[in-house]
């Protein structure tokens, strides 16, 4: 039951873990995505990045797009 309540708090309030700022996130976004796509421990090498992506919708959208761009096939990038 405490877990249910905690989930509700998380959903309503959002994450409050220590995390990077938006500028710090942008500075390492390319490195983080390449680490992930190279199957390296991105979260260990760039701690606090994941927490920021969970909390910031705008930076998370940038992350999703950069990742998708690097994975896209030729026909998807005109």
């Amino acid at each position, binding site marked *: *039951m*405490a877990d*249910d*309540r*905690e989930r*509700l*708090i998380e959903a*309503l*309030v*959002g*994450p*409050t*873990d*220590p*995390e990077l*700022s*938006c*500028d710090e996130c*942008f*500075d390492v*976004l*390319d*490195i983080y*995505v*390449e*680490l992930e*796509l*190279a199957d*390296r421990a991105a979260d260990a090498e760039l701690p606090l990045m994941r927490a920021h992506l969970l*909390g*910031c*919708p*705008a*930076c998370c*959208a*940038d992350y999703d*797009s*950069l990742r*998708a*761009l*690097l*994975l*896209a*096939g*030729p026909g*998807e*990038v*005109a």
Partner: protein
Amino acid sequence: MTTELPGFGLAAGLAGAPDTASEEWVARLRCLGAERDPAVAELHVLLLRAARFEIRRRRAAFPHLAGADLDDLAWQSADDALMSILRRLGDFRGDSRFTTWACKFAILEAGTKVRRHAWRDREIPVTPSFWPVAPDRAPSPHQHAEARELLAALHEEVERLTDRQREVFVAVAFNEVPIDVLAERLNTTRGAVYKSLHDARRKLRAALTTRGLASADEGR
């Protein structure tokens, strides 16, 4: 040199190893005068493709934007990204491929422009468009009552935030206003808006912990 455009699958040399292609990009862009022009033009092609890719991804969320408007946004995004990159070329350390580093600027510009364009004629709501309510079908009456208590407490604590924190929290959490749209309206940066949001979240969680509604070790 061989232009290494994204969208052709993952090339070797991801994450860490400085690669020749990246070094060549930087060297060409650091040339003076006319020698630099071909590299700048090539980079603009790359950025335009990345911007168009980003805008296509976001298009479904903004169906009222016409094709010509969208391509104009892509060009503006590529232009602005190019200016940022040339200004910040010294920041590139070779920890990723140059093309990846460059494309993030185009994605940032394009994503921000699409969101701002989509919201340009819309008011930013300053009051919640809704307040969450406890679900009618909670598993038990006790859980329903607990959820109602939590939501009532949250409502009270939101009113205790600073004006800026409340404005940002309500806009983002309850009215789904994009952070960069909010930043433009408040004449500040995405980072500053996000800091207000994060401060509001921490304050709310701390208040709920003080009320005994959130456990202290989860207060973070």
